[in-house]
């Protein structure tokens, strides 16, 4: 068990790396004849900040707006209101051109690796794609870096020529992580990255991520619906309920003394047998 | 009702756009109707120029188009240069003949398609079904033109059918029933031809619609309740299949119109088809535009009627709309 490696390490107490202020996202739904318009609020009044090297867990049930928030943070969707500050720059105020070098720094890993990888491309091509898009290095350099990243995430270099469908679920997720690392991001957003995998594989992936965090000093935003699964992994936990953050505290504090009634509900909900079997009883680590 | 209004407006706008398009295309065409007159040395260039001016041929496009629109409003649809009369009455007669032909063949085709399709569906997978499948494929593959020419050959070689036209010469004043019979005899071959070329697609769709109904839970439940025979068929199966079939009716109008053009030319049935071809060859501008527009009117009307039928017959659509 590598629980020790996953414990949050001493954090850098300097300026916040990423700061979100008053972020909100609304959808307007059109009826069949565009006559009726319903406004759906995905999330509203989201404020938080992350320091370098810390891990923030974003938990809540399905429909709480976590995934939408994650996509907005990764700039895959534009938020309706608010600001996102990164290393002192308001990212939403940048033009498209200025944005391109910055978007390297924040990357997203999807829940379903199979859909996030083009089934027609080989592993090496997939990992090297961000480099190719940003035109970094020659073709050979890109390929070399792809192989290096594969090794780093625990995939053998022999499978560089294979296509995504030839890998297992866990391996595909590793591929996706390798690809996200290609641009050397400072922040990695994991949108339910382990939810589609079996427990064994989840453990392995979390180990990998912890190792990467230790080696590269990256910050993570880990979105999940499973509160207990993030208990070791995250430094801070923010609980979302119906589009708002209802509680945001250091991980240890939250588990010991949950203040918000919803948080308590989440904690009290069906305990995951698997996490008990994996030896992560809440009480045991205290 | 709002829905109907919206569709009508959409259709009118579409027709206007089409009229503009056809008119513009014809303007692009080099040469005009009176070119053929130049060959005749007895007609002076002055006469030709005079005729041209009288019909407004040299004028710029917007003026000609506006004049044509005015003519449409008055119900004339412009002037046929070849027949030297208003276009509208010309189209009326031809359109009547085309409608006669297409309605009779549509009836033929559906009267054949439904039994064959249903029969095929009930005997699904068995040899008779496969045979029907092969026959429909074969019919689909053979180009319409060849089929029509084959029918013409049949008529000429066997003499069983008249080889063209709508009425026999000299049959004019022979009394209503005799005339009707005469027309009917001339109608058989073209209507049959048209029905044959549209039949395969219909059979396929009827068959698959029926199969879907047979496999649906509601149908099985009805059978389980002991409902059987004609009641089962008419009130349950046919009703359920009516939605896709009515849509099919709407869609098949376009192909039917195109095919009717061909069959009319090959078998000399005096409908819109031969008129259009003749008008193009002689550059009778307003006739061409009028005929093209009319075909579009038929198509759009057919689609609209099909949509209305769907609306009336399928309660699900009404509920959807109300939301």
């Amino acid at each position, binding site marked *: 068990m590598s629980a020790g490696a996953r414990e949050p390490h001493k954090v850098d107490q300097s300026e916040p790396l990423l700061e979100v202020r008053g972020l909100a996202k609304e959808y307007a739904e059109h009826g069949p004849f565009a006559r009726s318009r319903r406004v759906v609020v995905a999330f509203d009044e989201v404020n938080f900040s992350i320091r370098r090297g810390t891990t923030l867990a974003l938990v809540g049930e399905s429909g709480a707006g976590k995934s939408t928030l994650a996509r907005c943070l990764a700039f895959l969707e534009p938020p309706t209101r608010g600001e996102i500050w990164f290393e002192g720059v308001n990212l939403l105020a940048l033009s498209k051109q200025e944005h391109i070098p910055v978007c390297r720094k924040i990357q997203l890993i999807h829940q379903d690796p199979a859909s996030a990888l083009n089934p027609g491309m080989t592993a090496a091509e997939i990992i090297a794609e961000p480099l190719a898009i940003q035109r970094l290095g020659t073709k050979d350099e890109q390929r070399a870096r792809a192989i290096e990243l594969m090794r780093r995430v625990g995939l053998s270099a022999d499978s560089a020529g294979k296509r995504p469908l030839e890998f297992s679920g866990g391996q595909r997720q590793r591929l996706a992580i390798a690809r996200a690392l290609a641009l050397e991001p400072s922040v990695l957003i994991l949108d339910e990255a382990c939810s589609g995998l079996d427990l064994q594989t989840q453990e392995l992936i979390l180990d990998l991520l912890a190792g990467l965090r230790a080696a590269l000093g990256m910050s993570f935003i880990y979105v999940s619906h499973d509160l207990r699964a993030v208990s070791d992994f995250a430094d801070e936990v923010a609980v979302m309920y119906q589009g708002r953050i209802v509680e945001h505290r250091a991980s240890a504090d939250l588990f010991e003394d949950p203040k918000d009634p919803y948080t308590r509900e989440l904690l009290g909900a069906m305990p995951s047998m698997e996490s008990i079997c994996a030896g992560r009883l809440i009480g045991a680590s205290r | 009702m709002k829905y109907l209004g919206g569709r009508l407006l959409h259709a009118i706008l579409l027709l206007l756009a089409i009229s503009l398009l*056809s008119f513009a295309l014809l303007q692009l*065409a080099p040469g005009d109707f009176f070119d053929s007159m130049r060959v005749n040395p007895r007609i002076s260039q002055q006469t030709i120029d005079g005729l041209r001016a009288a019909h407004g041929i040299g004028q710029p496009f917007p003026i000609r188009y506006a004049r044509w629109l005015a003519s449409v409003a008055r119900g004339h649809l412009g002037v046929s240069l070849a027949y030297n009369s208003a276009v509208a009455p010309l189209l009326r007669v031809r359109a009547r003949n085309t409608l006669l032909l297409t309605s009779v063949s549509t009836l033929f085709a559906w009267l054949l398609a439904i039994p064959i399709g249903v029969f095929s569906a009930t005997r699904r997978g068995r040899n008779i079904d496969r045979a029907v499948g092969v026959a429909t494929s074969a019919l689909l593959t053979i180009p319409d033109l060849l089929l029509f020419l084959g029918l*013409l050959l049949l008529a000429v070689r066997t003499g069983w059918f008249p080889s063209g036209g709508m009425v026999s010469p000299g049959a004019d004043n022979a009394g209503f029933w005799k005339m009707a019979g005469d027309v009917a005899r001339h109608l058989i071959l073209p209507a049959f031809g048209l029905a044959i070329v549209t039949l395969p697609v219909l059979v396929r769709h009827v068959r698959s619609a029926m199969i879907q109904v047979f496999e649906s839970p509601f149908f099985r439940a009805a059978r389980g309740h002991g409902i059987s025979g004609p009641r089962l068929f008419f009130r349950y199966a046919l009703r359920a299949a009516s939605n896709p079939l009515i849509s099919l009716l709407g869609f098949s109008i376009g192909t039917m119109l195109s095919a009717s053009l061909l069959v009319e030319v090959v078998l000399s049935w005096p409908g819109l088809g031969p008129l259009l*071809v003749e008008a193009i060859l002689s550059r009778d501008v307003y006739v*061409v535009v009028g005929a093209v527009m009319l075909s579009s009117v038929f198509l759009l009307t057919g689609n609209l009627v099909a949509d209305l039928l769907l609306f009336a017959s399928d309660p699900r659509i009404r509920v959807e709309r109300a939301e």
Partner: protein
Amino acid sequence: MNRNYKLRASIVLLGAFHVFILLAGFLAPYGYATQDRDMAFAPPTRVHFVDAHGSFHARPFVYGVKNNVSDSSYEEDPPNAYPLRLLVSGAPYKIAGLFSARLHLVGVSAPARLFLLGTDAYGRDQFSRFLYGGQLSLLAGMIAAALSVGIGGIVGSLAGFYGGWIDNALMRGSDLFFALPWLYLLFAVRSALPLHVPEWQVFLLLVSVIGLIGWSRPARLIRGIVLSARERNFVRAARGFGASDAYLLRRHILPQTYGVAFTQLALLIPQYILAEVTLSFLGLGIGEPVPSWGSLLATLQHYDVLSSYWWMFLPAVLLVPLFFAYHTAADALQERYESVSL
């Protein structure tokens, strides 16, 4: 397995047919305009292996033909036997419009004639005209289909990828083309061109006309694919890496459309061949003396042809296997790529 077999068999058949047509000059005994007024409406020449005395000849031969002017019939005239010769030098022709040659596969020495499918009113060999006509009709169909799918692909991709008002405008535009029965639309567009189009260059104009009428369905289908491909996660991911629209289209989205594009091609080619044939049949296609399958069929409307000259129908019969092969291929492709029909 069955589907693959269908696809392969039909493609082989199509390939063979097209190669024959491509080699029209080589395979045709005569040029397409070569007239032989003495031999108007001659029935197909019979090729014999066994002569009047009953002896077998390995090399097939034909008899000279006498023309009975009294009743316009033709009779074979043994014992004037003329053997078939292979690889003869004959009328000049061009391969693919570029290379000149004079070599023909078979021929007979004068005054015998080799009319495999008989002759028409001007004494022109129907078989040669069938082959040359095929070049025109097939080429027209293929180029027009490529045009339709090309335009449809571009329009559909733009509409599907950008959505919004571009989508609306383009799809409204394509609505226009749906509102007319295709043959009427074809005629309307055809009427914009000069009536008599004797030159091959104007052939291209004709082809574009045909191709222009049918772009709306491929456009709709491709638009659908692009719309759903655009939402795929790997496309979003690439966007997250800073990919431009052009890159996304080129690398991720357009490759998804190739299957449907191919199927549409297979569907449209026979339709467009038929469109050219129909135009020529009605006298709206390429003018004399260049043959097209349509003009060959046009003679079938004449009474005397129908009643007496049965061989004029042979070209029509020969067309059926071609269309059958195309339909089979299109069916198989549709099954494979499961394109949704409108």
